[in-house]
Protein backbone atom coordinates (compact mmCIF):
# COMPACT_ATOMS: atom_id res chain seq x y z
CA UNK A 1 0.00 0.00 0.00
CA UNK A 2 1.44 3.29 -1.03
CA UNK A 3 1.22 6.44 0.98
CA UNK A 4 -0.92 9.31 -0.32
CA UNK A 5 0.31 12.83 0.21
CA UNK A 6 -2.16 15.46 1.36
CA UNK A 7 -1.24 19.13 1.62
CA UNK A 8 -1.96 20.88 4.89
CA UNK A 9 -3.33 23.79 2.84
CA UNK A 10 -6.08 21.57 1.44
CA UNK A 11 -7.15 20.75 4.99
CA UNK A 12 -7.21 24.45 5.87
CA UNK A 13 -9.39 25.28 2.87
CA UNK A 14 -11.79 22.44 3.64
CA UNK A 15 -12.14 23.46 7.31
CA UNK A 16 -12.74 27.08 6.31
CA UNK A 17 -15.56 26.11 3.96
CA UNK A 18 -17.09 23.66 6.41
CA UNK A 19 -17.22 26.32 9.15
CA UNK A 20 -19.29 28.48 6.84
CA UNK A 21 -21.52 25.73 5.51
CA UNK A 22 -22.24 24.39 8.99
CA UNK A 23 -23.20 27.78 10.40
CA UNK A 24 -25.34 28.97 7.50
CA UNK A 25 -27.34 25.85 6.61
CA UNK A 26 -28.81 22.98 8.60
CA UNK A 27 -28.10 19.36 7.65
CA UNK A 28 -30.98 17.76 5.68
CA UNK A 29 -31.89 15.34 8.47
CA UNK A 30 -32.30 18.18 10.98
CA UNK A 31 -34.24 20.31 8.51
CA UNK A 32 -36.58 17.39 7.78
CA UNK A 33 -37.03 16.58 11.46
CA UNK A 34 -38.08 20.18 12.14
CA UNK A 35 -40.58 20.05 9.29
CA UNK A 36 -42.06 16.76 10.51
CA UNK A 37 -42.28 18.13 14.05
CA UNK A 38 -44.11 21.25 12.89
CA UNK A 39 -46.55 19.18 10.83
CA UNK A 40 -47.29 16.82 13.74
CA UNK A 41 -47.39 19.38 16.58
CA UNK A 42 -50.91 19.59 18.06
CA UNK A 43 -50.36 22.52 20.48
CA UNK A 44 -50.98 25.91 18.80
CA UNK A 45 -48.23 28.02 20.44
CA UNK A 46 -45.76 25.18 19.85
CA UNK A 47 -46.73 24.85 16.21
CA UNK A 48 -46.42 28.59 15.71
CA UNK A 49 -43.02 28.59 17.41
CA UNK A 50 -41.72 25.74 15.27
CA UNK A 51 -42.93 27.68 12.23
CA UNK A 52 -40.87 30.70 13.29
CA UNK A 53 -37.79 28.55 13.85
CA UNK A 54 -38.18 27.16 10.34
CA UNK A 55 -38.72 30.69 9.04
CA UNK A 56 -35.41 31.57 10.68
CA UNK A 57 -33.65 28.88 8.66
CA UNK A 58 -35.07 30.43 5.46
CA UNK A 59 -34.10 33.95 6.58
CA UNK A 60 -30.55 32.82 7.26
CA UNK A 61 -30.28 31.39 3.76
CA UNK A 62 -31.83 34.45 2.10
CA UNK A 63 -29.69 36.98 3.98
CA UNK A 64 -26.48 35.02 4.19
CA UNK A 65 -26.62 35.09 7.99
CA UNK A 66 -25.71 32.40 10.50
CA UNK A 67 -28.75 30.44 11.69
CA UNK A 68 -27.81 31.22 15.28
CA UNK A 69 -25.60 34.00 16.62
CA UNK A 70 -23.76 31.55 18.86
CA UNK A 71 -21.61 30.14 16.12
CA UNK A 72 -20.02 28.04 18.78
CA UNK A 73 -16.85 26.20 19.54
CA UNK A 74 -15.43 24.82 16.32
CA UNK A 75 -15.55 21.11 17.09
CA UNK A 76 -13.59 19.40 14.32
CA UNK A 77 -13.52 15.65 13.87
CA UNK A 78 -11.05 14.08 11.49
CA UNK A 79 -11.01 10.47 10.40
CA UNK A 80 -7.51 10.21 9.08
CA UNK A 81 -6.51 7.26 6.93
CA UNK A 82 -3.30 5.73 8.19
CA UNK A 83 -1.91 5.79 4.63
CA UNK A 84 -2.18 9.58 4.40
CA UNK A 85 0.96 11.65 4.78
CA UNK A 86 0.26 15.30 5.55
CA UNK A 87 2.81 17.65 3.99
CA UNK A 88 3.56 21.33 4.30
CA UNK A 89 2.61 21.82 7.92
CA UNK A 90 1.16 20.33 11.07
CA UNK A 91 -2.39 19.00 11.04
CA UNK A 92 -3.46 20.97 14.11
CA UNK A 93 -2.09 24.22 12.69
CA UNK A 94 -3.84 23.57 9.39
CA UNK A 95 -7.16 23.03 11.17
CA UNK A 96 -6.76 26.13 13.34
CA UNK A 97 -5.94 28.23 10.29
CA UNK A 98 -9.12 26.95 8.62
CA UNK A 99 -11.18 27.92 11.67
CA UNK A 100 -9.52 31.34 11.78
CA UNK A 101 -10.29 32.03 8.12
CA UNK A 102 -13.80 30.65 8.36
CA UNK A 103 -14.77 32.66 11.43
CA UNK A 104 -12.97 35.92 10.65
CA UNK A 105 -13.64 35.99 6.90
CA UNK A 106 -17.13 34.57 7.26
CA UNK A 107 -18.43 37.12 9.79
CA UNK A 108 -19.03 34.41 12.38
CA UNK A 109 -18.92 35.18 16.09
CA UNK A 110 -15.71 34.63 18.01
CA UNK A 111 -16.71 32.92 21.22
CA UNK A 112 -13.50 31.39 22.54
CA UNK A 113 -11.70 32.57 25.64
CA UNK A 114 -8.06 31.54 25.64
CA UNK A 115 -8.00 30.84 29.35
CA UNK A 116 -11.01 29.55 31.30
CA UNK A 117 -10.45 31.76 34.35
CA UNK A 118 -8.70 34.84 33.01
CA UNK A 119 -11.12 35.00 30.09
CA UNK A 120 -9.51 36.83 27.23
CA UNK A 121 -11.14 36.31 23.85
CA UNK A 122 -8.78 34.83 21.25
CA UNK A 123 -10.56 36.99 18.62
CA UNK A 124 -10.48 34.35 15.88
CA UNK A 125 -12.43 31.48 17.47
CA UNK A 126 -9.32 29.31 17.71
CA UNK A 127 -8.28 26.89 18.92
CA UNK A 128 -10.44 24.29 17.26
CA UNK A 129 -11.65 21.47 19.50
CA UNK A 130 -9.97 18.78 17.46
CA UNK A 131 -10.55 15.02 17.65
CA UNK A 132 -8.49 12.79 15.35
CA UNK A 133 -9.34 9.18 14.74
CA UNK A 134 -6.80 7.07 12.87
CA UNK A 135 -8.59 4.71 10.46
CA UNK A 136 -7.55 2.29 7.68
CA UNK A 137 -7.13 3.64 4.13
CA UNK A 138 -5.83 6.79 2.47
CA UNK A 139 -8.77 9.18 2.84
CA UNK A 140 -9.22 12.12 5.19
CA UNK A 141 -12.77 12.84 6.28
CA UNK A 142 -13.36 16.13 8.07
CA UNK A 143 -16.50 17.10 9.98
CA UNK A 144 -17.04 20.52 11.52
CA UNK A 145 -19.79 20.60 14.15
CA UNK A 146 -20.04 24.07 15.75
CA UNK A 147 -21.39 23.72 19.28
CA UNK A 148 -23.20 26.48 21.15
CA UNK A 149 -22.90 27.09 24.87
CA UNK A 150 -26.58 27.31 25.79
CA UNK A 151 -27.01 23.62 25.23
CA UNK A 152 -23.44 22.61 26.14
CA UNK A 153 -23.87 24.14 29.61
CA UNK A 154 -26.86 21.90 30.32
CA UNK A 155 -24.94 18.70 29.57
CA UNK A 156 -24.09 16.26 32.39
CA UNK A 157 -22.02 13.21 33.21
CA UNK A 158 -22.79 10.66 35.91
CA UNK A 159 -20.77 7.78 37.27
CA UNK A 160 -23.65 5.39 37.97
CA UNK A 161 -23.39 2.10 39.80
CA UNK A 162 -23.57 -1.03 37.64
CA UNK A 163 -26.61 -2.08 39.68
CA UNK A 164 -28.43 1.07 38.49
CA UNK A 165 -28.60 -0.63 35.09
CA UNK A 166 -30.57 0.59 32.13
CA UNK A 167 -33.22 2.13 34.38
CA UNK A 168 -30.53 4.24 36.02
CA UNK A 169 -29.40 5.43 32.60
CA UNK A 170 -32.94 6.36 31.57
CA UNK A 171 -33.55 8.21 34.83
CA UNK A 172 -30.30 10.13 34.47
CA UNK A 173 -31.09 11.18 30.89
CA UNK A 174 -34.60 12.34 31.78
CA UNK A 175 -33.38 14.17 34.86
CA UNK A 176 -30.81 15.98 32.72
CA UNK A 177 -33.45 17.09 30.24
CA UNK A 178 -35.78 18.21 33.03
CA UNK A 179 -33.03 20.27 34.67
CA UNK A 180 -32.14 21.81 31.30
CA UNK A 181 -35.75 22.88 30.65
CA UNK A 182 -35.89 25.83 28.30
CA UNK A 183 -32.20 26.75 28.43
CA UNK A 184 -30.84 24.63 25.56
CA UNK A 185 -33.31 26.06 22.99
CA UNK A 186 -35.63 23.06 22.59
CA UNK A 187 -36.45 21.13 20.52
CA UNK A 188 -33.22 19.44 21.49
CA UNK A 189 -31.07 16.64 20.13
CA UNK A 190 -29.30 14.36 22.59
CA UNK A 191 -25.98 12.61 22.27
CA UNK A 192 -25.66 9.97 24.97
CA UNK A 193 -22.51 8.07 25.90
CA UNK A 194 -22.84 4.88 27.92
CA UNK A 195 -19.79 3.05 29.24
CA UNK A 196 -16.09 3.65 28.69
CA UNK A 197 -14.15 5.67 31.24
CA UNK A 198 -14.97 9.10 32.69
CA UNK A 199 -13.35 10.93 29.76
CA UNK A 200 -14.29 8.45 27.02
CA UNK A 201 -17.92 8.54 28.00
CA UNK A 202 -18.16 12.29 27.41
CA UNK A 203 -16.39 11.89 24.06
CA UNK A 204 -18.91 9.21 23.06
CA UNK A 205 -21.78 11.56 23.84
CA UNK A 206 -20.32 14.35 21.71
CA UNK A 207 -19.48 11.98 18.88
CA UNK A 208 -23.04 10.61 18.92
CA UNK A 209 -24.27 14.07 17.88
CA UNK A 210 -22.54 13.61 14.53
CA UNK A 211 -24.90 10.82 13.53
CA UNK A 212 -27.86 11.76 11.32
CA UNK A 213 -31.21 11.89 13.13
CA UNK A 214 -32.58 9.40 10.60
CA UNK A 215 -29.93 6.78 11.43
CA UNK A 216 -30.56 4.57 14.45
CA UNK A 217 -27.88 2.82 16.52
CA UNK A 218 -26.84 -0.31 14.57
CA UNK A 219 -27.46 -2.46 17.66
CA UNK A 220 -31.27 -2.99 17.92
CA UNK A 221 -31.09 -2.98 21.74
CA UNK A 222 -29.67 0.56 21.74
CA UNK A 223 -31.84 1.64 18.81
CA UNK A 224 -34.97 0.84 20.80
CA UNK A 225 -33.51 2.59 23.84
CA UNK A 226 -33.02 5.68 21.66
CA UNK A 227 -36.68 5.66 20.59
CA UNK A 228 -37.89 4.98 24.09
CA UNK A 229 -35.89 7.88 25.51
CA UNK A 230 -37.03 10.24 22.75
CA UNK A 231 -40.68 9.39 23.44
CA UNK A 232 -40.20 9.76 27.20
CA UNK A 233 -38.60 13.19 26.73
CA UNK A 234 -41.41 14.34 24.46
CA UNK A 235 -43.92 13.22 27.08
CA UNK A 236 -42.45 15.80 29.49
CA UNK A 237 -44.35 18.55 27.65
CA UNK A 238 -41.49 21.08 27.74
CA UNK A 239 -42.15 21.91 24.09
CA UNK A 240 -40.37 24.20 21.62
CA UNK A 241 -38.47 26.92 23.53
CA UNK A 242 -39.94 25.53 26.76
CA UNK A 243 -43.35 27.14 26.03
CA UNK A 244 -45.10 23.75 26.29
CA UNK A 245 -46.01 21.25 23.57
CA UNK A 246 -45.38 17.85 22.09
CA UNK A 247 -42.02 18.61 20.46
CA UNK A 248 -39.19 18.66 22.98
CA UNK A 249 -36.69 16.28 21.38
CA UNK A 250 -35.90 15.67 17.71
CA UNK A 251 -33.74 12.64 18.28
CA UNK A 252 -31.52 10.68 20.67
CA UNK A 253 -28.27 9.05 19.54
CA UNK A 254 -26.50 6.66 21.90
CA UNK A 255 -22.94 5.43 21.60
CA UNK A 256 -21.87 2.62 23.88
CA UNK A 257 -18.43 1.24 24.78
CA UNK A 258 -16.88 -1.42 27.01
CA UNK A 259 -16.35 -0.34 30.59
CA UNK A 260 -14.89 -1.59 33.90
CA UNK A 261 -16.86 -4.21 35.85
CA UNK A 262 -17.34 -1.65 38.62
CA UNK A 263 -18.36 1.27 36.35
CA UNK A 264 -21.43 2.54 34.55
CA UNK A 265 -20.66 6.02 33.26
CA UNK A 266 -23.35 7.90 31.36
CA UNK A 267 -22.88 11.24 29.63
CA UNK A 268 -25.59 13.40 28.11
CA UNK A 269 -24.46 16.04 25.62
CA UNK A 270 -27.39 18.30 24.82
CA UNK A 271 -27.64 19.98 21.46
CA UNK A 272 -30.29 22.41 20.26
CA UNK A 273 -32.56 22.63 17.24
CA UNK A 274 -29.57 24.26 15.55
CA UNK A 275 -27.70 20.94 15.40
CA UNK A 276 -24.96 21.84 12.96
CA UNK A 277 -22.50 19.64 11.14
CA UNK A 278 -20.86 19.61 7.73
CA UNK A 279 -18.43 17.07 6.30
CA UNK A 280 -16.03 16.74 3.40
CA UNK A 281 -13.69 14.03 2.25
CA UNK A 282 -10.21 14.78 0.93
Amino acid sequence: MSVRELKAGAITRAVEQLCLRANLTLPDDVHNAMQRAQDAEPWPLAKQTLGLLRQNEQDALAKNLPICQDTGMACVFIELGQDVHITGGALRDAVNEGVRRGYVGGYLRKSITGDPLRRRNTEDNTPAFLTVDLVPGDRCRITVAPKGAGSENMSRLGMLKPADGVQGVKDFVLETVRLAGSNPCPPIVLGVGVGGSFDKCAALAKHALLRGLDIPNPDPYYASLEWELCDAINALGIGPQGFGGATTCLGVAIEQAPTHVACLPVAVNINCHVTRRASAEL
Partner: protein
Amino acid sequence: MQYQLNTPLTREALAPLRAGDTVLLSGTVYTARDAAHARMMELLDKGEALPFDIAGAAVYYVGPTPERPGQVIGAAGPTTAGRMDKFTPRLLDLGLACMIGKGKRDQAVKASVVKNGAVYLAALGGAGALMAASIESCEIIAWPDLGCEAVRRLRVRDMPLTVLLDAHGGDLYQSGPEAYLQSLV
Protein backbone atom coordinates in the same frame (compact mmCIF):
# COMPACT_ATOMS: atom_id res chain seq x y z
CA MET B 1 -53.38 37.96 23.19
CA GLN B 2 -50.98 39.93 21.04
CA TYR B 3 -49.82 43.38 22.14
CA GLN B 4 -48.03 46.19 20.34
CA LEU B 5 -45.61 47.95 22.67
CA ASN B 6 -43.40 50.99 22.24
CA THR B 7 -40.46 52.11 24.36
CA PRO B 8 -40.01 53.66 26.85
CA LEU B 9 -42.21 51.23 28.74
CA THR B 10 -44.41 52.21 31.64
CA ARG B 11 -45.77 50.03 34.41
CA GLU B 12 -49.26 50.77 33.09
CA ALA B 13 -48.41 49.59 29.58
CA LEU B 14 -46.95 46.35 30.90
CA ALA B 15 -49.69 45.57 33.41
CA PRO B 16 -52.09 43.83 31.00
CA LEU B 17 -49.41 41.38 29.77
CA ARG B 18 -49.74 37.76 30.87
CA ALA B 19 -47.34 34.87 30.48
CA GLY B 20 -47.97 33.30 27.08
CA ASP B 21 -49.10 36.51 25.37
CA THR B 22 -47.15 37.60 22.33
CA VAL B 23 -45.69 41.08 21.90
CA LEU B 24 -44.50 43.08 18.92
CA LEU B 25 -42.00 45.54 20.39
CA SER B 26 -40.93 48.74 18.66
CA GLY B 27 -38.58 51.50 19.72
CA THR B 28 -35.21 51.46 21.45
CA VAL B 29 -33.65 48.34 22.93
CA TYR B 30 -30.21 48.17 24.58
CA THR B 31 -28.02 45.09 24.38
CA ALA B 32 -26.07 43.85 27.38
CA ARG B 33 -24.86 40.41 28.38
CA ASP B 34 -22.35 38.92 30.83
CA ALA B 35 -19.39 41.30 30.59
CA ALA B 36 -21.50 44.45 30.13
CA HIS B 37 -23.51 43.55 33.22
CA ALA B 38 -20.34 43.14 35.25
CA ARG B 39 -19.19 46.62 34.14
CA MET B 40 -22.57 48.19 34.84
CA MET B 41 -22.35 46.86 38.40
CA GLU B 42 -18.90 48.44 38.77
CA LEU B 43 -20.30 51.80 37.65
CA LEU B 44 -23.18 51.56 40.10
CA ASP B 45 -20.80 50.58 42.90
CA LYS B 46 -18.80 53.73 42.19
CA GLY B 47 -21.96 55.82 42.06
CA GLU B 48 -21.52 56.59 38.38
CA ALA B 49 -24.14 56.73 35.62
CA LEU B 50 -24.95 53.77 33.39
CA PRO B 51 -24.29 54.12 29.65
CA PHE B 52 -28.03 54.51 29.00
CA ASP B 53 -31.13 55.64 30.88
CA ILE B 54 -32.40 52.50 32.55
CA ALA B 55 -35.80 53.89 33.62
CA GLY B 56 -38.43 52.28 31.39
CA ALA B 57 -35.73 50.65 29.27
CA ALA B 58 -35.73 47.31 27.49
CA VAL B 59 -32.53 45.26 27.63
CA TYR B 60 -31.81 42.42 25.22
CA TYR B 61 -29.34 39.72 26.27
CA VAL B 62 -27.58 39.20 22.95
CA GLY B 63 -24.14 38.99 21.44
CA PRO B 64 -24.65 39.28 17.69
CA THR B 65 -22.38 37.96 14.98
CA PRO B 66 -20.44 40.68 13.12
CA GLU B 67 -22.44 42.31 10.34
CA ARG B 68 -21.34 41.91 6.74
CA PRO B 69 -20.80 45.17 4.83
CA GLY B 70 -24.23 46.67 4.14
CA GLN B 71 -26.01 44.74 6.87
CA VAL B 72 -27.42 46.44 9.99
CA ILE B 73 -26.46 43.59 12.29
CA GLY B 74 -25.49 39.94 12.07
CA ALA B 75 -27.47 37.06 13.55
CA ALA B 76 -28.97 38.31 16.80
CA GLY B 77 -30.86 35.72 18.82
CA PRO B 78 -31.01 35.71 22.63
CA THR B 79 -28.50 34.25 25.04
CA THR B 80 -29.33 32.37 28.26
CA ALA B 81 -30.69 34.96 30.69
CA GLY B 82 -30.02 33.03 33.90
CA ARG B 83 -26.37 34.10 33.87
CA MET B 84 -27.54 37.68 34.44
CA ASP B 85 -29.76 36.76 37.41
CA LYS B 86 -27.43 37.97 40.10
CA PHE B 87 -27.29 41.47 38.59
CA THR B 88 -30.92 41.77 37.61
CA PRO B 89 -32.90 42.74 40.76
CA ARG B 90 -30.63 45.75 41.22
CA LEU B 91 -31.35 46.94 37.67
CA LEU B 92 -35.08 46.31 38.06
CA ASP B 93 -35.09 48.43 41.21
CA LEU B 94 -33.52 51.23 39.14
CA GLY B 95 -36.39 51.08 36.67
CA LEU B 96 -35.42 48.48 34.08
CA ALA B 97 -38.83 47.58 32.64
CA CYS B 98 -38.26 44.77 30.19
CA MET B 99 -35.71 42.01 29.72
CA ILE B 100 -35.46 40.02 26.52
CA GLY B 101 -33.71 36.66 26.53
CA LYS B 102 -34.25 32.95 26.84
CA GLY B 103 -34.28 30.43 29.65
CA LYS B 104 -35.22 30.21 33.30
CA ARG B 105 -34.73 32.97 35.89
CA ASP B 106 -34.22 32.50 39.60
CA GLN B 107 -36.66 33.24 42.40
CA ALA B 108 -35.13 36.62 43.22
CA VAL B 109 -35.62 37.82 39.64
CA LYS B 110 -39.20 36.57 39.56
CA ALA B 111 -40.00 38.38 42.81
CA SER B 112 -38.34 41.56 41.59
CA VAL B 113 -40.28 41.47 38.30
CA VAL B 114 -43.52 41.38 40.29
CA LYS B 115 -42.40 44.03 42.77
CA ASN B 116 -41.36 46.44 40.02
CA GLY B 117 -44.16 45.72 37.56
CA ALA B 118 -41.65 44.63 34.91
CA VAL B 119 -41.69 41.82 32.32
CA TYR B 120 -39.29 39.21 30.98
CA LEU B 121 -39.90 38.40 27.33
CA ALA B 122 -38.62 35.54 25.19
CA ALA B 123 -36.86 36.07 21.94
CA LEU B 124 -36.64 32.83 19.99
CA GLY B 125 -33.52 30.94 21.00
CA GLY B 126 -31.50 29.93 17.98
CA ALA B 127 -33.45 32.22 15.67
CA GLY B 128 -30.57 34.62 15.01
CA ALA B 129 -31.56 35.54 11.47
CA LEU B 130 -35.26 35.98 12.26
CA MET B 131 -34.61 38.26 15.24
CA ALA B 132 -32.18 40.33 13.15
CA ALA B 133 -34.95 41.03 10.66
CA SER B 134 -36.77 43.30 13.15
CA ILE B 135 -33.67 45.39 13.93
CA GLU B 136 -33.53 48.61 11.90
CA SER B 137 -30.40 50.18 13.28
CA CYS B 138 -27.56 49.31 15.60
CA GLU B 139 -24.96 51.53 17.23
CA ILE B 140 -22.33 50.69 19.83
CA ILE B 141 -22.70 53.13 22.74
CA ALA B 142 -20.31 51.67 25.32
CA TRP B 143 -17.34 49.35 25.73
CA PRO B 144 -16.43 48.51 22.13
CA ASP B 145 -13.52 46.50 23.56
CA LEU B 146 -16.08 43.88 24.58
CA GLY B 147 -16.69 42.96 20.92
CA CYS B 148 -19.97 41.12 20.57
CA GLU B 149 -20.65 41.89 24.24
CA ALA B 150 -20.41 45.68 23.81
CA VAL B 151 -23.52 47.71 24.70
CA ARG B 152 -25.50 48.57 21.59
CA ARG B 153 -28.51 50.78 21.02
CA LEU B 154 -30.93 49.05 18.66
CA ARG B 155 -33.93 50.52 16.95
CA VAL B 156 -36.42 47.72 16.50
CA ARG B 157 -39.74 47.42 14.74
CA ASP B 158 -42.26 44.72 15.60
CA MET B 159 -39.73 42.49 17.28
CA PRO B 160 -41.63 39.20 17.87
CA LEU B 161 -41.52 38.25 21.56
CA THR B 162 -43.42 36.02 23.98
CA VAL B 163 -44.17 36.90 27.62
CA LEU B 164 -42.29 34.55 29.97
CA LEU B 165 -42.60 36.34 33.31
CA ASP B 166 -45.37 38.87 33.89
CA ALA B 167 -45.90 41.42 36.64
CA HIS B 168 -48.46 39.20 38.33
CA GLY B 169 -46.21 36.20 38.99
CA GLY B 170 -47.07 34.31 35.81
CA ASP B 171 -44.31 32.07 34.41
CA LEU B 172 -44.78 30.55 30.96
CA TYR B 173 -42.07 27.93 31.55
CA GLN B 174 -44.38 26.54 34.25
CA SER B 175 -47.83 27.28 32.93
CA GLY B 176 -47.10 26.43 29.27
CA PRO B 177 -46.01 22.81 29.73
CA GLU B 178 -48.68 22.33 32.43
CA ALA B 179 -51.45 23.53 30.15
CA TYR B 180 -50.22 21.30 27.32
CA LEU B 181 -50.05 18.21 29.56
CA GLN B 182 -53.47 19.07 30.97
CA SER B 183 -54.87 19.07 27.45
CA LEU B 184 -53.87 15.41 27.10
CA VAL B 185 -55.91 14.08 30.03
